[in-house]
């Protein structure tokens, strides 16, 4: 084929062209073109726990998913609502402590603590962040960064909930299998759920608030209501991840308010592609295992880790997912009409 023909074909083959109408139903190939990336994601995530050698790496997968849920909540808040949140650690810590308290003080089983922690934690985080909602961009980021530090110091100073030791002896999930598949399933549900939600009419309001909050006010819609709803969704996800983390480690403590939980999701989002919602998951799949592999190098770990980040930012600043999606949409040899 000549270059010209190839070019013409490429123009016609955008995934948009296919999915915007009923074209996708034209043939099996068309449907496969749309469905395959999603199926690979679902299949890949579900098979990961089986493919991993040994208990240690299976545990790493759970941690990857926890970070991925956090990164997803960051990506949603930052690129669909316009609130740059550094509160990942706040969400994890709140969710973790709620699950820990419910389980060890009240004897609630993990199957109930996790959803309860998500809902109660979401409400608590939303109420605490409510006064900051008029802030935007970097100002919101600074305030949300303050919260996890604040919570950790309060627990330390008042010596509540086990103080610096944390709460020990929390029940774990009934088996490693349940643990991994529960977290993987939640992650997949959140990824596809959020993707679906941002395209509904209500999801558009979030985008509108990010674009232009004055115009949303002039449209007779309360922006505070929608911002708090978005914060509730994001913090609920974060708290669910925190609750899972508590049950995995069978312990909750102030190190759950560590800033790793705020920073790593952002790095993962940058690497994976911001605003794609799947990108953060991809970023976590790279960053967390790499950070585990580099454990052998001791403190040099940070150097390798930082070089990896810098490399990504320099050479693929758009993010893997954005790059991959563009290439996939240009993919030529799929279909012969």
């Amino acid at each position: 084929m000549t270059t010209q023909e190839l070019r013409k074909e490429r123009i016609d083959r955008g995934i948009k062209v296919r999915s915007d109408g009923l074209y996708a139903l034209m043939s099996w190939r068309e449907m496969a073109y749309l469905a395959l990336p999603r199926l690979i994601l679902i299949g890949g995530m579900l098979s990961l726990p089986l493919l991993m050698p040994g208990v240690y790496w299976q545990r790493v997968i759970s941690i990857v998913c926890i970070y991925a849920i956090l990164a997803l909540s960051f990506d949603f808040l930052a690129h669909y609502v316009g609130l740059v949140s550094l509160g990942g650690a706040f969400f994890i810590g709140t969710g973790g402590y709620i699950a820990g308290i419910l389980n060890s003080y009240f004897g609630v089983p993990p199957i109930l603590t996790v959803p309860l922690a998500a809902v109660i934690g979401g409400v608590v985080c939303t109420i605490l962040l409510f006064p900051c909602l008029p802030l935007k961009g970097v100002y919101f980021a600074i305030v949300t960064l303050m919260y996890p530090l604040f919570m950790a110091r309060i627990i330390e100073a008042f010596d509540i909930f086990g103080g610096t030791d944390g709460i020990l002896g929390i029940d774990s999930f009934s088996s490693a299998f349940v643990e991994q598949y529960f977290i993987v399933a939640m992650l997949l549900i959140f990824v596809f759920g959020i993707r679906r939600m941002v395209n509904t009419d209500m999801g558009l309001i979030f985008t509108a608030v990010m674009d232009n909050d004055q115009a949303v006010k002039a449209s007779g819609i309360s922006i505070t209501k929608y911002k708090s709803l978005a914060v509730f969704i994001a913090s609920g996800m974060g708290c669910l991840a925190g609750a899972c983390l508590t049950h995995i480690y069978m312990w909750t403590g102030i190190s759950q308010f560590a800033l790793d939980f705020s920073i790593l999701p952002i790095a993962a989002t940058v690497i994976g592609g911001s605003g794609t919602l799947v990108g953060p998951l991809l970023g976590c799949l790279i960053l967390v295992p790499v950070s585990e592999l580099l454990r052998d190098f001791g403190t040099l770990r940070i150097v390798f880790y930082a070089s990896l980040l810098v490399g990504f930012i320099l050479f693929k600043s758009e993010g893997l997912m954005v790059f991959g999606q563009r290439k996939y949409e240009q993919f030529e040899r799929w279909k012969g009409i």
Partner: protein
Amino acid sequence: MTQPILRMQNVSKVFGGVKALSDVTVDVFPGDVLGIIGPNGSGKTTIVNNITGFIKPTSGKIFFKDKDITGMAPHKIADMGVTRTFQVMRPYYSLPAYKNLVIPLFSPRAKRTGGWRGGGRLGDRATVAVDILEEIGFERDSNIPFKPTSSLPTGYLKRLELARCLSLKPEVIICDEVFSGLSMSEIASMVPLIERLHAEGITIVMIEHRLRELFQVANRVMVMNFGEKLIEGTSDEVMADAKVKEAYFGSEKIEEVMTYA
């Protein structure tokens, strides 16, 4: 005399040391087209911001149909049917044009009223949005309603501002310089649109610098200068007034100016 639909009573607004509005009182009656003119910085946009709740007046009261709306949140005022356009257009640039209207159509007021033409029933929001856009001058056959908002020219963006008001099924539209930045032909097509909205019973307050077009549609005109209301009346009365001439063209007596210099 009928009850005024909008009433500003001795409204003042002070920004730090600057008095942006002092003691402005004005009544807008149902079916009015009130024009507000005045030199730059005379407080015209501040009036709009005060009425629609985007800023709170320092003193004075604002009433909508006898209900005190002073200092209410902007979305609540919009919910009652007092809508505004922005002088600097504020569309959602990352959305296609028609999705800009899905947002106001999602508001509680649109759900109650069903949008501009809806009789209390709202269908599919995207369809309603395209219908409204067509009525306001977006050609349906073209793909303009579906284009990214960032690629639209100013004329369409101004119409989009109006369309946002219309999708709330407003009782009052306050237009903040809808003609500014438009070409002569675009203005010429905008005037009938305003007239049509007026004919449908929507009360309109227009802030404008383009006097010829404004006088075509407005039945009353108010002149502002340095935050004060100079005069209110028909266009002929206003243009004949000496104070207005002075505000716009400076003092008539050249000797007086020379003595100050």
